[in-house]
């Protein structure tokens, strides 16, 4: 099967132009391994620092003719939604052959016309922002991979405009306090921003309506800000829901208090299907110290801050407000690489070139597919575990904001603390279990001794003495063995092996008398075998112990 990769931006596009590309030399190697042929439009990766030569080296061909590149493709990989190609005088939908497949961001909620157009052309379109947010699909989740980059870049943009250090310093000339960074919304982007700011040495704090993210914020060394009003804002699917007015009042009061203190504010709040909530009001900006920076990562969806203008730097009352919508695209190489990997994982999920299938039983494929075989298949039928419907309120550009996208979390381990406790309980009973064993052994021996010793008083007395020695030795053994380090359990076994060769004494006791007697022969053999144990056990222990070194 043939995959086409095309230029995302034209020289005639308004700024900021798309810098990312849907496949990189790295991802092309993997696509080849899946059995695909890849043809790349000349210059497609230039803005992301991938010249044509690198694509060729990775095994792709450079398409001689841009129109032909579309027409010959079975699958088109895109970053941005399908668009008009002014340079080719045609729309991408029409450049593709009927029935082709497209993978890329699509935003069907606000591109109804485009959706209809794709349907009419019988295209199969998988919208990357519609990949369900289930744990299996995390590796295909392009919103998260891009939001992570955007969060990082947001901090760097802020640092670039901020007139001081992030980290505190004691210099000969005097003291510089560390910057205080407030991140509103601890989703993927927010957590990335927190991590980056922490790495630069800032004091970080974060606010999120979902109580569940508290642990994540604190694990990064951040402070989780709380309002006194109790309400959990988990709206499912990794987003926050809209809160009650009373809660919002408390939240705004908290923000006003913070505004006087912090140097950098990064807002990431988004509510799926609606414009971004306003939460950093003009008066809050005015409360901030001059020279402070606000980065509004929701600028694309209308912004979280009253003052924000999309794609512009606004200075209000001395406070710098950044409304960039292309934050991920400002790291074009990494953004393309990760996006390319997301696509590779999705293509792998769909069977690669050999087992290619648009399988509607696959929850991920079903969720992402918006048109298929001449029908619009969006939104997907509601499923309790399925993701939120496409975030329709997001403008066409990059998937920046993603307020409360839960951070990728591997397999949920049910309570680490609980487990530790269980383990300790185990250990407690483990220590007593051998005693049960030993007691059992003692009972057997005692029973045997008493039942066979008969009524001979001195015999009983003698047996009782031996039993005492045996019992005491068992307890000494238990005490001593528990202190053995687990790393030396193998040497422990071999040394006890050697020591149990002490049975050689038993053989030696029976060596008296004529050698021809069966008892003496048997005793001699016993000595032989027991000595193998002694020699072998001690030497092999010595060999092993010699190897242990620091």
């Amino acid at each position, binding site marked *: 099967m043939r995959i086409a990769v095309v230029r995302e931006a034209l020289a005639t596009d308004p700024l900021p132009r798309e810098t990312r590309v849907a496949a990189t030399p790295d991802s092309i190697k993997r696509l080849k391994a899946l059995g695909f042929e890849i043809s790349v439009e000349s210059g497609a990766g230039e803005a992301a620092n991938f010249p044509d030569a690198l694509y060729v080296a990775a095994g792709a061909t450079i398409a001689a003719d841009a129109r032909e590149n579309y027409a010959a493709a079975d699958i088109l990989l895109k970053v941005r939604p399908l668009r008009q190609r002014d340079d080719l005088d045609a729309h991408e939908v029409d450049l593709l052959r009927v029935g082709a497949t497209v993978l890329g961001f699509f935003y069907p909620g606000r591109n109804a016309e485009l959706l209809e157009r794709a349907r009419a052309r019988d295209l199969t379109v998988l919208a990357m922002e519609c990949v369900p947010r289930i*744990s299996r699909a995390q590796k295909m989740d392009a919103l998260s991979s891009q939001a992570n980059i955007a969060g990082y870049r947001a901090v760097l943009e802020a640092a670039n405009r901020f007139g001081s250090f992030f980290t505190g310093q004691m210099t000969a000339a005097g003291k510089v306090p560390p910057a205080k960074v407030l991140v509103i919304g601890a989703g993927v982007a927010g957590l990335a921003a927190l991590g980056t700011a922490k790495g630069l040495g800032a004091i970080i704090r974060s606010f999120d309506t979902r109580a569940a993210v508290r642990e994540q914020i604190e694990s990064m060394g951040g402070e989780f800000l709380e309002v006194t009003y109790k309400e959990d804002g988990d709206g499912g699917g990794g987003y926050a829901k809209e809160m009650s007015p009373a809660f919002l009042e408390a939240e705004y009061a908290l923000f006003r208090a913070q505004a006087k203190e912090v140097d950098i504010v990064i807002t990431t709040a988004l509510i799926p299907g609606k414009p971004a909530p306003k939460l950093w009001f003009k008066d809050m900006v005015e409360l901030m110290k001059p020279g402070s920076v606000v980065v509004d990562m929701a600028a694309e969806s209308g912004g979280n801050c009253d003052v924000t203008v999309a794609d512009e730097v606004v200075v209000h009352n001395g406070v710098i407000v950044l409304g960039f919508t292309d934050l991920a695209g400002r790291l074009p190489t990494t953004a393309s690489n990760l996006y390319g990997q997301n696509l590779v994982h999705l293509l792998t999920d769909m069977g690669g070139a050999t087992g290619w299938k648009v399988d509607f039983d696959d929850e991920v494929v079903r969720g992402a597919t918006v048109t298929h075989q001449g029908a619009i298949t969006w939104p997907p039928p509601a499923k309790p575990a399925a993701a939120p419907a496409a975030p329709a309120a997001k403008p066409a550009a990059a998937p920046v904001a993603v307020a409360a996208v839960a951070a990728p979390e591997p397999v949920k381990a049910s309570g680490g603390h609980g487990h530790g406790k269980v383990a300790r309980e185990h250990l407690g009973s483990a220590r007593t279990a051998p005693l049960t064993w030993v007691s059992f052994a003692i009972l057997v021996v005692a029973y045997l001794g008493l039942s066979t010793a008969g009524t001979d008083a001195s015999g009983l007395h003698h047996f009782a003495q031996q039993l005492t020695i045996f019992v005491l030795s068992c307890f000494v053994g238990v005490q001593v063995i528990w202190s053995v380090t687990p790393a030396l359990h193998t040497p422990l076994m071999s040394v006890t*092996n050697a020591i*149990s060769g*002490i049975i050689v004494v*038993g053989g030696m006791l029976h060596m008296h*008398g004529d050698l021809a007697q069966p008892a003496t022969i048997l005793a001699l*053999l016993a000595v032989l075998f027991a*000595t*193998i144990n002694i020699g072998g056990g001690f030497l*092999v222990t010595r060999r092993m112990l010699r190897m242990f070194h620091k």
Partner: protein
Amino acid sequence: MHSSAEILGHGPMDVFKGLAWVIAGVLFISSLRGLASQETARRGNGYGIVGMGLAILAMLVAGTKDNIAFLIGALAIGATVGVTMAQRVAMTAMPEMVAILHSFVGLAAVLVGYAAFLAPGHLGVDSAERGEIWLDVLIGAITFTGSIVAFLKLRGSVSGKPLLLPGRHVANLLMFGTSLALVVPFATQPGTEALPFLLAMTLLACILGVHLVAAIGGADMPVVVSMLNSYSGWTAAAAGFMLDNNLLIITGALVGSSGAILSTIMCRAMNRSIWSVIFGGFGADAPSGGTGAKVVGDMTETSIDELTEELRNAKEVIIVPGFGMAAARAQHAVKQLVDLLRKRGVNTRFAIHPVAGRLPGHMNVLLAEASVPYDIVLEMDEINQDFPKTDVVFVVGANDIVNPAAQTDSTSPIYGMPVLEVWKAKRVVVLKRSRGAGYAGVDNPLFVAPSTRMLFKDAKAGMEELVAKLMA
């Protein structure tokens, strides 16, 4: 019952012998005590050697001088054979070595029991002594044949699959009960007339030993080997009662409790009850009756190139070795990898699960053989809390010991077994020979977790490629 005076006597030689044995007993205890840490372990082994030498010397000096030439000959031959075996054995073959040594103890105990029975002047009916002979031979025979089967299984000479005969528990009980019943005629019949009962019991015990161990699967061997270790101790103790020899009683009790503790530790680590181990055949019965939730999802494969990159960029790496590393003899290649990473300033450590491998502490010995410093080889309890801040966890030939289902899926057969929480790390790379399930036959949701990458290669070949790539 022959009196203790017969053995200990009252002459100066006997006093010397008695003293020597007390000292030997103390030395054996110090020997085990020495294993508490790597620093003192070698000295501990030395104590053991001195103790044993003293005990044998005392016997030679103060014991019977009949057949002394043969006795010394047997000692010399036995020691030579033992030393040769110990020098030749590969560290990966330690489990077999330990198992075969157990069988020698069992065999020696059986022989000593028969010698005591047949010894001139002991053929009169002394029911107490008979009872002790019976006990010594019973445990000795079970240890002997059980260890041989364990040895063959570990060596791969017989299949590691558990042999599960129908009604095996009933058969075991019958055999054990019959053996137990045979003590009555054996203890009461005069002279050689009792011999057939002893022989019959020995035969039954031998079959019982084979059957008990045959019913246990290959990967449950750590438990079995430590259990046999325990039996070999009880055998020696029984011989001590039989011969009225306190040194044997003390030593046997030490070794017996050592094995019992090891078995318990292994059982806990595998989530098995100790009783199911003693009665065998537990490896195949899913304790909870379930098979665990079916794991759905795709494994994501990785390549040597990608892994090299990830390792180069990591700050914290933890390697989790399993039986696959031992089977492929990959420990030296692993050591090279660790050296390369540590040279680059990557904090690389090992996490060892108590039942990784086929013998308690097996992984530690293999890593020590490859001269991995022991202070970077950590136990499960020491390292489990470090996984969340680890960049890359590299699982080499392990499966069940890193299965999150043990904590999350109550229907899983391994539910409740303590496991290494590798899935909390940022990236888990699993080096594995094939896509198959682990020994327990349980699906592992770790393999399809989003942060997990799979590398399907032989442990050694994969490791060597990785090392070559990292050096380049």
